[in-house]
């Protein structure tokens, strides 16, 4: 089974090399003479007067957490889709598997409707 993932490994290695090699080459081949002005943060010619990190609005967090929850829902859907044909040989199991997943999605749709009705999805 793992042979199928060999291209992925090659891809990861090439990706890492693509990112790292130019930086390493620059570091190794180029002259390296830092001074105070060179290493200071460059901000359009101004003196940097505060940290670049600033506080985010909590609304981003809300969007991100709703995204995670539905992402998890998709993660649950995937093995179900992969197995659906096989476990549904008999009619009873077929109905069970189908209803089961729709109950699952239905419960989450309640959450979706709640978030929507509350206006959590509006950006304002």
């Amino acid at each position: 089974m793992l042979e199928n993932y060999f291209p992925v490994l090659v891809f990861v290695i090439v990706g890492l090399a693509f990112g790292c090699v130019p930086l390493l080459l620059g570091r190794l081949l180029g002259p390296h003479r830092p001074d105070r002005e060179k290493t200071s943060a460059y901000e359009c010619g101004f003196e940097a007067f505060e940290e670049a990190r600033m506080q985010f609005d909590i609304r981003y967090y809300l969007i991100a957490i709703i995204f995670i929850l539905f992402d998890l829902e998709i993660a649950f859907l995937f093995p179900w889709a992969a197995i659906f044909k096989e476990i549904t040989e008999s009619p009873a199991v077929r109905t069970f598997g189908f209803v089961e997943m729709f109950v699952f999605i239905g419960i989450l749709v309640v959450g979706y409707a709640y978030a929507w009705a509350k206006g959590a999805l509006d950006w304002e």
Partner: protein
Amino acid sequence: MEFKTVLFYLFAAVLVASALRVVTARNPVHAVLFLVLAFFNASGIWMLLDAEFLAIALVMVYVGAVMVLFMFVVMMLDINIESVRRGFWNYLPLGLLVGTILVVEMAAVLGQRYFSLDALPNTAAEAGYSNTKELGRLLYTDYAYPFELASVILLVAIIAAVVLTHRERKDTKAQKIGEQLATRRDDRLRIVSMASVKEAPSVEKAVTEEGNK
């Protein structure tokens, strides 16, 4: 050494190193990025164990979503790292002691039963074996009830997130289209009847005003 073994040690070494950097990095943003690296390597190890669904779900859910959330949390909190780090060396012995006790306890309870070489089945996957399908077969038949409970837990999480972080803003300038369409003329416009005759301005007054200018 076999190629798989080489890969395992490579993944494990990078995993341990990046996990160490997560707790030692000075900048919390760097710590989050090292955690991403640690997840990638853990996913690689799972892949070596033939747990392909878990490996891909780890990348998709943790790297793709949870770490973004971590990043938002790091960005939202205004932490002064220096003040958090103060007293690190004072607390270190106590922390190490507590950590060691926890590890020893967990090893004593779980170690022999679940992680000894006898307890682990020798899972040589035969051709056509699909981890995803095995997972699905168990999850959607034997474990149907826990599976439905998982959706309830997700629902609780959605509602908790909305309740905790969502608030109506009073100062927004968003349009409320329904309200705008439902408006009737009388809500916006008031017709006032006024007397049609006005007091005519006298010439004298107008002249003095000109003079003042």
